[in-house]
């Protein structure tokens, strides 16, 4: 079986070092659970992995419909895995709609496992299939393994006396059992999990266990030809230690808790539900014992204002949302900048504009993060590149906010928020604390609430501190006293000071993630494109291209050495899941000819897409149809090329 994580040329090789599996079914079929448990077993087997859950926008779409399909993709292997995989090797389709929606993604020659029991006339109609695809030739270029999972599940759970409807709820466990068998995995952890989950309903636990075992047994005992065979995937070489899987939303939440602890501050989180940001609110709501207060406000404006109010009162204020909600926070962010209070703003980006595509991923709020405010309102912006990276980035956001007394925007996205990957559990003691300082006495004769320290930060003075009464607000303030001051010189100076404070934030020098520090092409990414860019660059280097991967965490201010670094390359290509926003920042700041490579379909980049784009810069490299260094300034895919 070929692996998705290698180039087509590799597909002949017999020992795959990675495999991509996609589970797809109705949203009622429990595909996310199945995927989650398969992920656990994969992790326990020592493989590296990345996942991509893709669920419908509807809460519970009517059964069997195309828009009600829920899918979970996992890429796992015996080498480092950075993406959820371009195209699945294996597609599990629990009903016709799931097959229809997901077939296009399947790799040619890939394996389809389908539940014939769900391919009824009714379901075929709902999926707009004229004929049963399992019964005509339409799937000829794939391996198809179709049998009646529904019936087999009902049989397996018969001893527990469940009605048919309840019995069918265990279909996903049957399927999982089969998948476990295929990859030689232990069932024990899933047994344990089921027992814990259905502690109060042991019958249900047992029924599910029976279904799981039956699926496993089916694989083991059935006389099966060709595609149905066991695959072995040796463990990846990993640093020793304790591991877990983590999603981006979890990592941000834990990172914020860690950040607050490193700052020695209680945390106040003001949120308002919005997809995909809500997960952070949900996680933090369960961590009250860590000095966390979560406040579900009446709207996003109140959420950020309450967070600023809490920061004012001496806690670490945090707020979080997605595009439309971040837009609403704009005015209050300005006040945070003017009053110079610490604040972390997390933006879990989704497809836009407007309500857009709430459940799809995109990186299109970078303009808003860097530039989107009235007035000259500089604010640091940092971005997480993967679920596990989000932990460190969240700590970094807390550090900058408290050390520099400033709002900080942390960018993540729908993909990072929901995707899971293995994470070597860090030891909090390994992080350097950055305890917040409160001013409790005037530094000189007079109390000067806006007199800055060497970092340009003003002092943080908590109400409640005797003798330190003062007043702050959103009107331009005097350079030292903080009193209202409209005078031209003062405004000029304060604008300069605010700008300088942010520009001088200590940001680590930019490193090259892969490849040399100079050469023909730098592929510069930020955020969740890390995985596909990394793999595409790795493959291109293997083909002999002089290409490097540079991945920027500090979007604003940028690392001081980044300009020089980029100038050491003949070309700079900036793949983004937007129409070219970060490239604007790079061109403005460094006057380098950064070329955008954009994709705005709500789906992550595929490795192959990036590889092809890189190839255009290299003579004689497969993929460079032109045979010469070509300039990339394209939208991928660009179906409108003819229409423009």
């Amino acid at each position, binding site marked *: 079986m070929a692996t998705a994580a290698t180039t087509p040329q590799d597909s002949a090789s017999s020992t795959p070092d990675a495999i991509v599996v996609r589970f797809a079914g109705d949203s009622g079929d429990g595909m996310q659970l199945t995927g989650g448990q398969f992920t656990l077993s994969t992790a326990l087997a020592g493989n590296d992995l990345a996942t991509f859950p893709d669920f419908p926008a509807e809460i519970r779409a009517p059964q069997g419909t195309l828009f009600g399909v829920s899918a979970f993709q996992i890429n796992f292997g015996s080498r480092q895995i950075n993406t959820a995989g371009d195209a699945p090797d294996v597609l599990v389709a629990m009903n016709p709609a799931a097959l229809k929606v997901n077939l296009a993604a399947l790799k040619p020659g890939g394996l389809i496992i389908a539940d014939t029991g769900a391919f009824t006339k009714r379901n075929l109609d709902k999926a707009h299939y004229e004929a049963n695809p399992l019964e005509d030739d339409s799937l000829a270029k794939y391996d198809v393994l179709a049998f009646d999972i529904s019936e087999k599940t009902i049989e397996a759970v018969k001893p527990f006396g469940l009605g048919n409807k309840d019995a069918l709820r265990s279909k996903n466990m049957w399927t999982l059992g089969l998948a476990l068998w295929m990859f030689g995995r232990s069932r024990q952890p899933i047994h344990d999990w089921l027992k814990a989950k259905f502690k109060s309903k042991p019958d249900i636990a047992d029924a599910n266990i029976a279904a799981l075992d039956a699926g496993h047994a089916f694989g083991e005992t059935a006389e099966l030809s060709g595609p149905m065979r066991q695959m072995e995937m040796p463990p990846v070489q990993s*640093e020793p230690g304790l*591991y877990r899987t983590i999603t981006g939303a979890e990592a941000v939440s834990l990172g914020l808790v860690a950040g607050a602890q490193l700052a020695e501050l209680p945390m106040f989180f003001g949120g308002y539900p919005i997809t995909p940001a809500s997960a952070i609110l949900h996680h933090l709501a369960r*961590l*009250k014992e860590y000095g966390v207060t979560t406040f579900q406000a*009446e709207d996003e404006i109140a959420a950020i*204002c309450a967070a600023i109010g809490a920061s*004012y009162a001496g806690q670490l204020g945090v707020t979080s949302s997605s595009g439309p909600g971040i837009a609403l926070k704009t005015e209050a962010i300005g006040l945070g900048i003017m009053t110079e209070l610490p604040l972390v703003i997390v933006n879990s980006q989704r497809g836009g504009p407007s309500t857009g595509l709430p459940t799809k991923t995109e990186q299109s709020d970078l303009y808003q993060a860097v530039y989107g405010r009235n007035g000259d309102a500089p604010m640091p912006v940092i971005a997480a590149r993967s679920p596990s990276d989000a932990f460190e980035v969240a700590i970094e956001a807390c550090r900058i906010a408290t050390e520099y007394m400033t709002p900080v925007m942390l960018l993540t996205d729908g993909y990072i928020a929901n995707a899971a990957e293995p994470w070597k*559990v860090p030891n909090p003691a390994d992080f350097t604390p950055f305890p917040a300082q409160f001013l409790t006495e005037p530094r000189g004769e007079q109390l000067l609430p806006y007199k800055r320290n060497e970092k340009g930060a003003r002092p943080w003075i908590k109400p409640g501190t005797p003798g330190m009464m*003062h*007043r702050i607000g959103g009107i331009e303030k005097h350079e030292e006293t903080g009193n209202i001051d409209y005078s031209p010189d003062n405004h000029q100076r304060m604008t300069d000071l605010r700008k300088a404070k942010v520009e001088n934030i200590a940001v680590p020098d930019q490193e090259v993630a892969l490849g040399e520090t100079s050469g023909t092409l730098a592929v510069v990414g930020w955020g969740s494109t890390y995985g596909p860019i990394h793999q595409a660059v790795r493959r291109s280097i293997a083909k002999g291209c002089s290409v490097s991967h540079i991945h920027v965490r500090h979007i604003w201010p940028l690392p001081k050495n980044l300009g020089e670094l980029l100038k050491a390359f003949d070309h700079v290509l900036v793949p983004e899941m937007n129409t070219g926003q970060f490239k604007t920042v790079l061109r403005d700041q460094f006057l380098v000819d950064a070329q955008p490579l954009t994709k705005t379909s709500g789906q992550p980049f595929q490795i192959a897409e990036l590889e092809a784009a890189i190839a255009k810069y290299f003579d004689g490299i497969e993929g460079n149809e032109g045979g010469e260094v070509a300039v990339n300034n394209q939208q991928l895919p660009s179906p409108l090329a003819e229409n423009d």
Partner: protein
Amino acid sequence: MNAPVTIETTLKDWETDQEVRWCPGCGDYAILKAVQRTLPQLGADPANTVFISGIGCSSRFPYYIESYGFHTIHGRAPAFATGAKLANPDLDIWLVTGDGDGLSIGGNHLMHVLRRNVNMQIMLFNNEIYGLTKGQASPTSREGTKSPSTPIGSYDHPARPAAFALGSGARFIGRGFDVSKHLPDVLKAAHAHKGAAFIEIFQNCIVYNKDVFDDFAAPKGAEDRQLWLENGKPMLFAKDTNGLALNRETLGLEVVDVVDGDWESAGVIVHDVTNRSVAHMLIEMPFGPFPMALGVLYDDPRPTFEDAVTEERERASAGKEANLAKLLGTGQTWTVSGTAQDPV
């Protein structure tokens, strides 16, 4: 009921060194003085007292009080105050807002701070106009108000701040006006109420809406149109010659004559600050024969938001250890043994 420590101060202690920038003659001056006079009587501690405001003439208030002050953005003061109070429930928070700040752009936050019942005093300076932006009609402006944005008269039906507050779930409704000598008493009652206390203060904007409250607040001759409510006392006004009674037909209030102080036989209602139904009627009293209800219209405390949040946090934390290292390693974990390779 906020200040845990009672300390001694004088009016002077509450004055700042900032030049007061209201128009000469503005009613805001009188309110400022009333507050500065009240705070020492409450034993309030400047270090523990926080004035939070939105934007407007009224919202300049914090600059003139020697305590902690936060002049925020237009309409959002209740949200800032909620965050500050949750972060430090010991703070004694006074919120200052205007009819535009609190009821136009900020109506939603006002509703929610009242509904949640966050313990603070909310003073809404109602001058029925946008002062700071030079005199446009506000949501409380009377119909027909001529202003730059309504040159031939406004036609919005005015909002009634106290009715809005009660409909939003407020548990304390007080009313006063800028130059009234009773204003400090209303402030004191509001402070004594544990929870969100809403105080509507009629305020004379002498530049853009001069003397618009003269029918009941004119310095001379309008006292008869003021009904100062006292808990347990009959609802009498006009030197006790008039009172309010319930009309059994219309099931609404009516004005009755009281002869020789015999209010009982006139059926005058005894004010019960916890009666929400009557509070509704008092607040909605139209003009015409009715007086303006002033003082404490309603006062019926219930648990506060910050107490609930604190309790909830305690309940959630009970018996749990806040061990971050452990937390990080929670969930679906596995261990990679050290044999395979050296740490990277």
